[in-house]
């Protein structure tokens, strides 16, 4: 069992948890992830490592409640425990292996979409600790969905916030901000984009036009997270890769996003039903006899 030391709602449907997991905390690097099971019956949920404290032996995760599994997890409080917490999984971000002197020469841009702000944060923080200031664009649908603003402000070189509806910061999609920044005369050597698949796809389209090499962090469906099941396979540069061991970060200009997005939808019908059941509790499947479970 892995004790939850802190649990709070960052904004509607987005939760932060600090969890005691000594082995993970000792070893993890920015860019890696964990797999969590909330109870003995729970499914295995992959989540990016958002922060870690090696002395305390804790790891912070941030998750959005999108379905039955994460929704149930959102109900946990400090003092509760997670049944399983395995990691660190996947490869660390490439930045970690680059000599700091070289990183300092580079102009780095992070683009975070929605809950993707959480995995971007440890990378920016890691760089800032080593004297490298990276620019960060954070985008969300609306003001309420912006998370970790203060934390990010503290570690980013320049922080640009944009909302689709213009309710906060700039107005429009993150791609617009990228374009604007470049047009304003900014130059970037590398872009790291993390967020919903569709956002990463369009960021990559934009950066390809602008000639900025781009790294993305993919979140395909996973089971074991150790290379055993092949559920997480994605096509990158025409080659099949397992995101859990070869990634999760890849060269965004080579990723087949359309295929990856289709594969993400594999269990959509079943997941939708599970969510309904979770929301409606015992009132769902109330034995009316009219609905069958075999479609």
């Amino acid at each position, binding site marked *: 069992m892995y004790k939850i030391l802190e649990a709070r709602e960052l904004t509607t449907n987005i939760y932060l948890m600090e969890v005691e997991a000594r082995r993970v905390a000792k070893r993890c690097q920015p860019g890696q992830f964990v797999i969590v099971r909330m109870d003995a019956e729970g499914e295995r949920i992959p989540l990016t490592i958002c922060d870690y404290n090696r002395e305390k032996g804790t790891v912070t995760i941030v998750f959005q409640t999108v379905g039955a599994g994460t929704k149930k997890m959102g109900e946990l409080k400090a003092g509760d425990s997670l049944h*399983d917490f395995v990691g660190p999984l996947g490869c660390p971000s490439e930045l970690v292996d680059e000599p700091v002197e070289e990183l300092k020469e580079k102009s780095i841009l992070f683009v975070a979409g929605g809950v993707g702000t959480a995995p971007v944060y440890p990378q920016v923080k890691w760089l800032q600790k080593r004297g490298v200031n990276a620019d960060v664009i954070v985008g969300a649908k609306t003001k309420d969905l912006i998370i970790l603003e203060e934390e990010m402000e503290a570690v980013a070189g320049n922080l640009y916030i944009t909302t689709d509806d213009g309710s906060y910061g700039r107005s429009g999609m993150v791609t617009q901000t990228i374009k604007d920044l470049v047009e304003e005369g900014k130059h970037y050597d590398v872009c790291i984009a993390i967020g919903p698949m569709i956002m990463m796809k369009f960021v990559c389209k934009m950066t390809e036009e602008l000639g900025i090499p781009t790294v993305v962090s993919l979140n395909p469906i996973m089971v074991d997270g150790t290379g055993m099941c092949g559920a997480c396979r994605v096509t990158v540069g025409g080659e099949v890769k397992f995101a859990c061991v070869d990634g999760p970060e890849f060269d965004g200009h080579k990723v087949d996003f359309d295929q990856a997005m*289709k594969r993400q939808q594999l269990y959509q019908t079943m997941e939708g039903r599970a969510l309904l059941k979770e929301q409606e509790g015992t009132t769902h499947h109330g034995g009316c006899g009219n609905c069958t479970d075999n479609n």
Partner: protein
Amino acid sequence: MDVLKKVPVREQDAKVRATNFEEVCFGYNEEEAREEAERCINCKNARCIVGCPVSINIPAFIEKVKEGDVEAAYHIINESSSLPAVCGRVCPQESQCEGVCIRGIKGEPVSIGKLERFVADWACEKDVKPEGAKEKNGKRVAVVGSGPAGLTCAGDLAKLGYDVTIFEALHEAGGVLVYGIPEFRLPKEKVVAKEIENVRSLGVKIETNVVVGKAVTIDELMDEEGFDAVFIGSGAGLPKFMGIPGEQANGVFSANEYLTRSNLMKAFQEGSTTPIMKGNKVAVVGGGNVAMDAARTALRLGAEVHVVYRRSEEELPARVEEVHHAKEEGIIFDLLTNPVEILTNEKGWVSGIKCVKMELGAPDESGRRRPVVKPDSEFVIEVDTVIMSLGTSPNPLISSTTEGLETNKWKCIIADENSGKTTKEGVYAGGDAVTGAATVILAMGAGKAAAKGIDEYLTNK
């Protein structure tokens, strides 16, 4: 009673079991077991012992069954095997102990596997446990992986007085026994959990959720965590794909994924939190035990299932019993058939599998006749799900993070067969991680050999 024939074992009716996940075979009761035991003629130079990879004293334990002293029979088996309830169920007996039984020359061999299973199940029901160490020797051994190799090595070392900790990557111990082999062949609560409990009762600690090579390295286990030796039994868990067009389509799974969802995550049960695709028409590509398990799982989830295999029935690598059971249950075998492409519909979902017919040519290096494509034989099987079961290879997570641990060209860890010794001092290995995908009993045998090797090493150190 016909002495040339095995005492028949009671099984769930094929039609009924095709719709549930209960165990197929009921096993012998005491009376049936005694009757079958009587068929053994207690050979002096018992060939069956040679046929068993861990050399169980088969005639001796069968004698005890005849006498009705099942507990004594259990202890005889336990001297050589730590997972009898498992091996009695899943060993390919026809090519091992039973394959060479003298009874088999004229008639059917003695049903050694079913007798072993009977003894193990009896001991489990009566709560007879293997005997542990009298005293601890204070030395610590780390075991990576909790499959048959790891469990056996850990159990044997604990019996010798070592302080053993198993590190397992998944959230549950058992390796392929929990995530691969289905409930209807190997019940998890009744059999696997009990066998693991037996290993725990010897004092072995099991730490789950530790991916060695990620959370901690082999060197750190020895240098920082104080382990005097390490055994690697990490299995052969990486799935292979064919590399044909359409393989990334929605509805194509590796057998590992499909079986893990069903077995480890219990997706076959109503209300499970982990989803599984219940196909209408499923093609399973491959012909081994894994393919049979995937096919029979899909069948039980409600699909029409085709096993697509490129050689003929004779070459099917699966256990004969499993093929027989699969046929009884209604699995369709499309033999001498090889997929060349997976077809998809406009939404990117599997709509069919395009195959070619094969015929057997001259024998290849494995001695089996090589299948060659029949010209102009392309045809399509309409399916909505494809399960690829083409074999597995070892995970490089450990070998790539351990300096001095050498592997061969198949990524298998190089280890001495008799002692499990690897190219790195203090590090031993065995099971599928060394041999590539093999069998439970071979993995167990390797775990045993390594326990002996480790004991010798640490005693002389």
